[in-house]
């Protein structure tokens, strides 16, 4: 039930804020947004350079690995399925060893330069993809954990 103290507390005198405070805040926000845009552009430029460098590094390696990347055919797949039907265990074993060989040959074909190129392309792509995703689920509070944490500390003490 509201009492006199409540009434007084609702009407406490308060010095008024500077009339231009909202305008100053808006100016700061504009400056901050502008700086963020410039930083974003700079970062995008660096990432673009990384992608181009990565593609240049990948070029020769991709040519070498192309044979292995497109090695499969319909006939070989059909043969594998028929082998799987007649003798599953040897077929699976052969597939596994084939896969290990394939990875080994692919990495040999790529070489260090190719792998470096892959990383140079992948990192910017992941960075851009991450930017497209929502940072947080809306509804989660920015919150202030500090007071709650202190309460819990106090309760635990």
């Amino acid at each position, binding site marked *: 039930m509201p*009492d006199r103290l409540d009434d*007084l507390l609702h009407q*406490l*005198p308060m010095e008024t804020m500077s009339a231009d405070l*909202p305008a100053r*805040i808006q100016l700061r926000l504009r400056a901050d947004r502008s700086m963020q845009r410039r930083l974003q552009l700079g970062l995008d430029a660096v990432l673009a350079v990384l992608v181009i460098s990565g593609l240049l590094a990948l070029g020769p390696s991709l040519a070498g690995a192309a044979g292995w990347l497109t090695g499969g055919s319909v006939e070989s797949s059909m043969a594998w399925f028929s082998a799987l039907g007649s003798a599953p265990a040897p077929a699976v074993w052969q597939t596994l060893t084939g896969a290990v060989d394939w990875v080994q040959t692919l990495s040999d074909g790529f070489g260090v330069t190719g792998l470096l190129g892959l990383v140079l392309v992948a990192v910017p792509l992941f960075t851009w993809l991450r930017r497209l995703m929502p940072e947080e689920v809306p509804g989660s509070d920015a919150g202030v954990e*500090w*007071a709650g944490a202190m309460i819990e500390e*106090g309760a635990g003490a």
Partner: protein
Amino acid sequence: MTTDPDEQDLVRRAVEGDARAFDRLVEIHTPRLYRLVRRAAPDGAEAEAVVQEAWLRAWKNRRRCAPNRPFFPWLASIAMNVARDGWRKRRPLDFADLGDVVEEIPAAGISAEGRLEAAEARERLAKYVNDLRPEWRMILGLRYDGELEYREIAGVLGIPLNTVRTHLRRARAALRARMEEDDAGPAG
């Protein structure tokens, strides 16, 4: 506190990155935010600095704001977070020492205020509020200047509802005691 559909639309646009919508929110909410921060801040300059920083953080974290919920409590929580960074350096805030014990403070002592002129009483009360612990001033600011409900204050500060009630009771009891003491002084 209900959510005005117009404001909800503004908040939704701001969350999506519409700078003009966010600037409009700055115009709407800054006076109220200043009042509640100023109640707890030692001076006006610091209150303005806290308010500015709170808006900057609100813009950076705008995606965390839920447009279907009232905007002001979310903003207030950021402002309180900014404020504690500064105040903690001087003296750690302590919401813990009261526990959840709810005391019944008799309201009879308020009768002393009846003898004071309203304006004078408010001036004196404002002075007493300034003498309170920062965390109590913060809660009083949220309640009386920010006009938040108890559950909203609990959400803003991340403390249980009963603790909010306890803090408010304690703060009001302290204020009553000061006013009674002050009133009894010249007479006795």
